């Protein structure tokens, strides 16, 4: 464990050095990242101003969409396709004789890119926040913000393990790109990245509130934007931790089974 962490630290440092060559690209990515929620924000504010009867108020909508960019960025994972390729093309073989898991490399890549993206995103977030400062919900005190950070980290772990699970299908299937694409598309709606889950129709509420994707993006943002009661907060946190543990165990099991089934193409 300690040794793995030490290796991880080295790998992250190396990745950061490597990735900072593309710092221009990160700025561009983050610009795109902030644009999409901004368009949604303007649309929903117009609807509200035009008299639409939404179940949430203007402050909720504004805070939600302003913070959405940072939530989708910090909890994102883009490795499923790459990991599946490494399995399919046999790159995994060379890692099996190394003193660290192939997955550790992906963790390092994930952390280092996010580290660089934060620097690009925070100034943009600041500008958007400043523009909408009059209708932002800023929870008093430190508690909710701390929970925001904690749930973001848990959300990031959840997305990452879902990606491991999907990529692990490559042990048995030739082409998982359709699965990866399906995950991205389903996730974008169910996680609340397209429309706040609070605006989903009433009949879907029971499903929407307890499906795993809510805990990848929406839940952390709701903690700051919304008026979740402390019971709802605690239940949410428990459900989120439950999902992290359950998906983590499942991913571990499937990965181990996959390694046993692995036939090392190209060795």
């Amino acid at each position: 464990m300690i040794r793995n962490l030490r290796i991880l630290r080295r790998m992250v440092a190396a990745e950061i050095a490597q990735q900072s060559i593309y710092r221009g690209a990160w700025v561009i990515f983050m610009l795109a990242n902030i644009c999409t929620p901004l368009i949604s924000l303007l649309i929903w504010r117009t609807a509200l101003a035009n008299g639409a009867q939404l179940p949430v108020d203007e402050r909720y909508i504004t805070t939600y969409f302003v913070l959405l960019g940072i939530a989708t960025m910090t909890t994102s994972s883009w490795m499923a396709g790459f990991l599946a390729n490494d399995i399919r093309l046999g790159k995994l073989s060379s890692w099996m004789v190394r003193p660290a898991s192939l997955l550790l490399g992906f963790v390092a890549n994930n952390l280092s890119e996010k580290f660089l993206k934060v620097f690009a995103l925070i100034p943009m977030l600041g500008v958007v926040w400043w523009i909408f400062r009059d209708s932002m919900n800023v929870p008093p005190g430190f508690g909710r913000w701390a929970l925001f950070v904690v749930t973001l980290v848990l959300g990031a772990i959840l997305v990452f393990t879902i990606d491991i699970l999907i990529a692990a299908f490559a042990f048995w299937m030739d082409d998982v790109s359709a699965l990866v694409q399906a995950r991205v598309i389903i996730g974008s709606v169910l996680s609340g990245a397209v429309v706040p889950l609070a605006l989903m129709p009433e009949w879907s509420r029971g499903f929407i509130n307890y499906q795993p994707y809510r805990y990848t993006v929406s839940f952390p943002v709701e903690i700051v934007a919304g008026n979740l009661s402390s019971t709802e907060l605690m239940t949410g946190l428990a459900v989120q931790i439950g999902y992290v543990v359950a998906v983590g165990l499942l991913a571990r099991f499937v990965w181990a089974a996959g390694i046993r089934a692995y036939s090392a193409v190209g060795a």
Partner: protein
Amino acid sequence: MRHLRLWRRFFAQAVVRETHYRAHFLTTLLVGLVQLGLGIVPTLLLFGFTQEVHGWTRAEVIALVGVYQVVTGLMATFIGPNLNRMTSYLTEGELDAVLLRPVSSQFYLTFRWINVAELSNVASGIIVLAFGLVQSGLTPNVGQVLQAVVLVMCGLVLLTAVWSALVYSAFWLQSVGPIGIVYLSVVEAGRYPLTFFPVPVRSFLTFVFPVAFATTYPLQALSGDLGWGSVGLGIGLSVIAVLLIRLVWQRGLRTYASASS
């Protein structure tokens, strides 16, 4: 004229190429349909809470999404495959080989590659547009349809110019590889009528990033709310945009010093 003949060759070759990759056609079709469905979700939810927004009904906005799908489908078919690889042409010196050819290099780099499979999105967009028009009870006459078609073409020219300007920045900035993503995320604003945005944003979407000409204006033309004045404005802006982008290209070429050899 010669360029038109050349372009016909590009197209014929692309069709032949596509027949080799039938699975690609199918996945493009499926992904396009799912994305179209997803794109309508916010609109449907929005109109679950209200009857109309700034004079636009649900059916009209659905028709607008149809126009958006047609426009983005055409861009992804004819323009996207070219502009997406532009930065590698500029930063890796592949431009050299193009400059040597007996053809306008800007024409070649903007129209060489065609992704035929994306035309399926144009088809689904037309279906959605027709559905929206029938639902909203609009019956445009020939003149209005003509206005809409001209406006969509202006929109295509303007969007191509803006996207080109973005990628040509590689002449001066080098590392702008993923700049297409910025274009793709701003163009999303075209899913909604212009009046859904605050006034400063409206000007931005009309004159700086003129997606309004590609979606909102054509639909207004179909519902008869638009005179020929706006069509004239669209044509005028398109001409200016083409002249400007020619100029930017020529300026950029002068700074190009080839990366390889």
